[in-house]
Each structure stands twice: as structure tokens, then as C-alpha cells.
């Protein structure tokens, strides 16, 4: 068991830890938008770290580049998708944030509707 496999297992273990954090956050958080936070940030890092761990584990040139490309696609597309979901659910009033200490966006939407 070389040093490379140990690094790969460290990456994969971190990915599993972040996956568990994602699940707990998705179950426990009180609001829709905070759930989106858990899903956007932690899940993306989990997917990227697991694909990097697999790429280090395999350690062949073409195959590793391909697996890293999978991680890169997750890193780029998952924040975009969650952003689209948040925007749609705010605009259609599917779910509103619970505590609004500062809310500039509703003013902007009201100005836009005139």
C-alpha cells in the first residue's frame, strides 16, 4: 500500500464525510434556501473530491483525465443548476425565506413588474 493509495483514500473519505454532512443538512435545516445552501456547496465539493480520489487511485494518463473531467463538470454545473432552482422558486413564490432582515430582491421584482 503506497503513499498514492493513502492519498486516494484520504480524498474518498473526505468525500464520504461531506456526503453525510449533505444528508444531515438536507434533513435538518429549517428553510428551503438553507437546504439549497447545503445542496449547492457541500455536495459539489463531495463529488469533486470523490472523483479526484478515484483519479489518483487509477493513475493512468487518459483515464485519470477523463475522471477529472467528470469532477470538473460537477464543479461547473451544480452551482448553476441550484441557482436556477432558487431563482425560479423565488419568482413564482413557491417558497419565501422565513426571516427577512434585509430583502432587496422583492423591491427589484416590484419595480420590474410595473
Amino acid at each position, binding site marked *: 500500500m503506497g503513499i498514492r493509495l493513502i492519498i486516494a483514500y484520504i480524498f474518498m473519505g473526505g468525500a464520504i464525510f*461531506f456526503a453525510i*454532512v449533505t444528508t*444531515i*443538512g438536507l434533513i*435538518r*435545516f*429549517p*428553510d428551503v*434556501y*438553507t437546504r*439549497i*445552501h*447545503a445542496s*449547492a*456547496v*457541500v455536495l*459539489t*465539493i*463531495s463529488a*469533486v473530491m470523490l472523483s479526484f480520489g478515484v483519479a489518483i487511485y487509477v493513475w493512468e494518463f*487518459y*483515464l485519470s*483525465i*477523463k475522471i477529472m*473531467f467528470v469532477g470538473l463538470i460537477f*464543479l*461547473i454545473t451544480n*452551482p*448553476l443548476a*441550484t*441557482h436556477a432552482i*432558487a*431563482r425560479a422558486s*423565488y419568482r413564482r413564490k413557491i417558497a419565501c*425565506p*422565513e*426571516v*427577512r*432582515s*434585509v*430583502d*432587496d*430582491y*422583492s423591491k*427589484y421584482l416590484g419595480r420590474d413588474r410595473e
Partner: protein
Amino acid sequence: MRRKVFTFFITLAIWIVFSGRITDDVIFVGLIASFITTWLYSDLLFRSTNRRKNWAFYFKKFFYIILFIPVFFYEAFISALKVSKHVFEKKPSFSPGIVKVKTTLCNVTALTILANLITLTPGTLTVDFDMRERAFFIHWIDVTTAKEAEMRKQIIERFEGWLEVIFQ
């Protein structure tokens, strides 16, 4: 013409990486496929520019892109740790709100990457972008200040310098 040649070689390189080996038939099919792709879609990858810079300019840009990737991963990793601290609290305590932050960038690609970075930094989520005022609407999990300058400093000022150098 130069644009089409660049597109052709980039699509050929992606084909070879995805097929995973270099043999005669793979090269043959890849040449045909990337020729068709270049012929149809070559104006989507690069935009045509009026004035041409020298090579050192593009080399500097490429160097900064290579240097930017570890910063990106580091910020995302730290943000994941900070959100997971919120998960293990006994009762999750937030004071969420949506704030408006203005930016100075004007390139479309730079704005997209900045929005992605804002989503990946701790406790912030991009909801919308106003094209007339050049302002992001950001859902923030812990609103600590209401002043515009401090918000700018806490959220986006770390990345604007990098993106301004890369996409100019």
C-alpha cells in the same frame, strides 16, 4: 481562418482524450468528426476580435488561469467546512436575507464564473443578476452588516482582481 484551425485541434484533442488510446481508426474517425464540428459550430467557441494582441499577452492570461484553479478549489473546500459547521449545531441559527452587491466587471464569461464563485463561498447564493445596474442579488445565510462597502469586501473583492486580469 485561424479560429477554425484552433477549434479543429481543440476538438481533436478532446476526442483523443475521451477515446483513451491512439490507433489508426480512432484518429480517422476523430478527424472526420472534428471536421464536421468545426465546419458547423466554429463561431461558438471563440469570439472574433477587432485588434490583435501579441503572444505575451495571451501567455500571461493562460498562466493566470493555471494559477487560478488551486485558488478556486481552496475557496470551495473552506466554504464546505464552514457550512458543515452549521450542520452540527444543536439548533441551527441563521438570520438570512437577500442583499444587493454591485460589481465592476463587464465580460459575460467573467460574470458567470463570479456568480459560480459566490455560490461556492460560505453562506452565499446568487439568486439573480440585474443587467442595467450590474448588481448581483445574493441570498446570505448570516447577514452581519448592512453597509454596501463591507458587503463588497466580504463577498466578492477577493475574486474580482483575478477575474479582471484573466478576462480583459
